[in-house]
Each structure stands twice: as structure tokens, then as C-alpha cells.
């Protein structure tokens, strides 16, 4: 769901709560804000309809209410609570709730809960993506080290220069440094690493490994 709270019109909210004054108040408030609203209760085995944001009764929720793994909610979740018992709060957090509404539900609080849920859901999504990416890089670190060493010895450059060449080449080929490193570690040619201008620059300087570098380029 778009995290922009200024574009809520037409978004679909799903309320999982028995029909009572709280649900009525929430439903009418969501209509006022501009969302389309569907309600479902009692919470049963039926498949959940598609929604952009889900409000759920955390007092009565049970394991397996949602068809996804805990913390893998595909849309922002907002818990509706009367009880502040820690077990209930924990359960709601485990489901991935990012905002809360306390009963009795009135005309205030619904909009800020929506805003907070959307924002935190988006931040959490981005953070997860970035953690996944970083984890991948950490896992590939030994390969990058091996590739760097191969470049250093193969082209006669120092570590910084070797890393720089890897990065530039990865950018040119539109792959990650890690993927390129896998290729090099698997015996891929080093020649393609060097752009023409780099050859010129490197060749024009007197530095250790220059002769070797030139020899490799020819």
C-alpha cells in the first residue's frame, strides 16, 4: 500500500471485529476519511478478502487467524484492543501490527492510527529489504576478498585499486560486485575489468606492477 497518507481515497480497509458500537464507529470514521470498508465477523475460517489495510480484534484473535506467517503481513495491520494484558499485546505484535486503536473507538484516533501504520509498515518493508541485501553481501564477503586478491596479484595493483576496479566493472556490466566476484573467483578473465581510460591512467604512472599490467593488456 502506498504509504502516502494524503492518498487514502478508495483504499480498501478490512475490519475483523464483531458488530458492535466500536466497529460501527470505526467503519463510519473510515468512510469519512475516504476508504472503502469491508467487515468480517465472527472471525472464521473463510478466506480474507483483499485489502490495503486490516483492522483486527486483538482481544479475541487466535493463532492462525491470518493466512501468512507471523511478521510477514503483506499489508499494514492495526490492532483493536480493549485489554492491555501483555499476552494480547504480544500476540498483536507477533502478527505484525504497527498501530493500535483502543476501545471505545471514537471519532479521534482512527486517522492517526492509519498514518502511523502506513508509515511504519513502509519503513519496516524497506528496512527488511535493506537487511536482506546487506545479509547477502555479508555472506558474499569471502568471495569478494578472493576476487580482490586475484585482481591484486593478476593486475599488480594494491587493494584499494583492486576494489575500485571491481566496483567500476560491476557498474559497467550492471551486476553486483558480489556477482562479479563470483565470476572472477571461478576463473573468469581479469582483462575485462579495465576500461580503456583506466588502462591509460594506470599505464601513465610509475608504480609497482606497471610493466606487468601493460603486459597483460597487450
Amino acid at each position, binding site marked *: 500500500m502506498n504509504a502516502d497518507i494524503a492518498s487514502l481515497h478508495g483504499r480498501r480497509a478490512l475490519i475483523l471485529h464483531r458488530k458492535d458500537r466500536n466497529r460501527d464507529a470505526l467503519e463510519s470514521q473510515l468512510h469519512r476519511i475516504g476508504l472503502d470498508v469491508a467487515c468480517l465477523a465472527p472471525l472464521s475460517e473463510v478466506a480474507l478478502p483483499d485489502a490495503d489495510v486490516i483492522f483486527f480484534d486483538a*482481544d479475541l484473535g487466535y493463532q492462525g487467524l491470518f493466512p501468512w506467517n507471523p511478521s510477514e503481513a503483506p499489508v499494514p495491520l492495526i490492532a483493536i484492543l*480493549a*485489554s492491555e494484558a501483555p*499476552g494480547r499485546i504480544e500476540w498483536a505484535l507477533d502478527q505484525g501490527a504497527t498501530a493500535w486503536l483502543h476501545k471505545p473507538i471514537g471519532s479521534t484516533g482512527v486517522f492517526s492510527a492509519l498514518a502511523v501504520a502506513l508509515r511504519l509498515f513502509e519503513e519496516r518493508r524497506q528496512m527488511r529489504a535493506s537487511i536482506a541485501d546487506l545479509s547477502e553481501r555479508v555472506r558474499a564477503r569471502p568471495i569478494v576478498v578472493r576476487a580482490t586478491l586475484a585482481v591484486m596479484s593478476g593486475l599488480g595493483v594494491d587493494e584499494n585499486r583492486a576494489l575500485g576496479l571491481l566496483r567500476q566493472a560491476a557498474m559497467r556490466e550492471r551486476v553486483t560486485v558480489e556477482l562479479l566476484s563470483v565470476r572472477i573467483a571461478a576463473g573468469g578473465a581479469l582483462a575485462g575489468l579495465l576500461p580503456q581510460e583506466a588502462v591509460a591512467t594506470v599505464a601513465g604512472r610509475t608504480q609497482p606492477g606497471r610493466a606487468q599490467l601493460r603486459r597483460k593488456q597487450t
Partner: protein
Amino acid sequence: MAVSLIHARPSIPVGIVVSTTGSYAPVGRDMHDGALLAIRQINADDANPFRLEPVAADPGGQLETYRTVCEEMLRDRGIRHIIGCYTSSSRKEIIPVIEKYDGLLWYPSHYEGFESCDSVIYGGAAPNQHLVPLAGWMLPRYGTNVYCIGSNYIWPWENNRIMRQLAEAAGGRILRERYLPVGSTEVGEIVREIAAMRPDFVFNTLIGESSYAFYRAYHALREQDPEFASDRRPVTSCSLSEPELLAIGGEAAAGHLTSSVYFQSIGRSENAAFVTAFRAAFGAERVTSADAEAGWIVATLLARAIREAGSSAVAEVKRAVYECRLEAPQGPVRVDAENNHAWLTPRIGRSDAAGGFALLWEAETPARPDPYLARVELATVRTRMRAAGARLRVIGP
């Protein structure tokens, strides 16, 4: 309606909203009768410059009805003080109404805690007054491998969560946590599992018929296998009460441990008077319970506070109630000004076949209510375990 006390014994209406029909009717009846007894005693005492007029409503266990009857009392009848609710869901349902009309709810039940509302006086035990003492009694003496069985709603869920924390802090664990739908008596599989797992003790938070069926089935198990005798692997709870022992019936009711702030067997003159008056009012066959006593406590506190305040206005009654010191059947009771919960005396009792409890332990002084368990030190549990360690090794097999 604030009633001024200038005229001779004006009548102050008091709502009593408990379910005397429906799935937890016996508890509702006890709370109702305890409150009614107190009101009759207050009205019979000419020293009180007012009378309380009980206005009872039975929501039949239906949440929506709790709200509508309370709304009607507060809005249309000018009632400001309501004694009522057993389940937390019903209490949560009416609190907004109580707040809206500036009323005061006198809540006569123990519950799972984690609430402190300005418009509620909590007359029953918070978990630090029954659950924590139960764990403190059981874990060092019987062992730390616990089997939890409960009805599928918030009171058992929350109690089991706390029991898990305490057992784990003591180096033990919850072997299994099982739930039955409210009203279900399908306990066979659970008892078979307990027989196989051999927990050090069972923590039971089933309610009503489910609980009675479980006690009967567990009794059959311990008759078969001495490993499950009540001095080896007892069933424990924070709610088993005297009327329920009669409902379970006979030997199956005996040998279970309950943590409660009240037992009919408490040897205080105030309790003897309470039991006598209760039976005179409602029948010689009746037994008193924690629920009946809590009903009596909140109604008596309400009357004392009105008398001290010289008014039934909520703000003045609340100010006055914090100053009240009540010699209740269970012991001295007062309301904590910080969180509106009562100071109550924890006890452990063992049930017998005659429908009563033998007292095994009682706290020397009333325990300060701690509804958020903010002052429970898990380290204390560990210390108790160590202190009990040597003794356990001596008597161990």
C-alpha cells in the same frame, strides 16, 4: 443523582449488574447474594443515615446487554454506583458508559490485572495476590514442570503467560498449554496427555462445567495411578471455590490446591458472622465463596464511603473510600489510592470431600495490589527455589 443526607434515611439506588443466568450463573449468584447481604445489613443498621436501594439486572452473560442495562441505570434512573461484572470482557464493555455518565463501578471479582481505571473500584484479587503466591507455593515444593489447561479466553491465556514466566524464572517450563472452548467437557484426551507427560503439577484455568468435568476425569486417573495422587501431582487453580466443590461432588472434589484471598474456613469472628448471616439470608445449604465475599466487600465499602463522605456523589465517595478500613471476613481490607485495587490477604487452601478448604498458608498481612505486576521480582522466585532446594533434596526420592 447525588443524595444529600439531611433528610431522615434517604434512599440511594445501587445497581447490581451480574449474570445470574447464563454460562457463569453460579458465580454471578454468589456475587449478587454477597452484595445483597451487605445492603440488607446496612439498611438494618440505623446508624447509617441512608438506605441503599438495590436495583438488580441480569445481563445473562450477554456483552451487549451489560452495556444497555448500565446505560439505562445511569442515564434514565440517575444511578451513580453500580456493583457488577465478573468477566473482563463485560467490564471493558461497560467502563465507557460508566465514564460517560460519571458513575463508579464496584467490581467484585478477581481478574487477570493490567488495568487501572479511575471509574472502577476493584474489590477482587489482582494476579500478585493469588497467581504469584500460588506459583511461589508450588514451584519449590512440587517441581517446575507445569501442565496448563484452560478455557479458551483471555483470563486463562494471561494466567498461563504469567505462570510460564514464573516457572521459567524458577528454572522450569510449561510442558504443554491446552485450551478447551468455553462449555466443552471433552477432557479425555487432555487427561491422557497429562498421564503420559507426568507434570509436577497441573495449573487449571478451565471455568464452569469444563472445569468440573476435568476434576472428575483427573480423579479417575489418580484412583488408577498413585503417581497422580493429590500429594504427588495436584491440580491447582486461582478460582476453584466452595460452591464448585459441591458441583464437582464427592471425592473428585478433594485434594486440589487453590490460591484465594477468601475461604469459608477462615477462622475469624468476622467470617463466622458472615457465613451465619449468608446462610440465614439465602439458605442453610449455601456455602460462601471468594465471589460472595467480594460482593459483600464492595457493597460494604460503598456504604462506608457514602457515610464518611456525607454524600453519594462519586467524587466525594471516591475520596472517602481510600480512607475506609474494613474488617472483612478475610481480614483487613482497604482500597489503594494509587490504583483503586483492594489490599487483600493471599492464602493457599486444599479442598476436601465435604466441600471446604483446609488452610495451608496465609500471608501475615494484606498484600498491596499490583495490577501490572510491576513489583514482582522474578529473582525472588529463584531465591525461594534455592531456599527450598536443600529441603527438597532431603524429602526427594
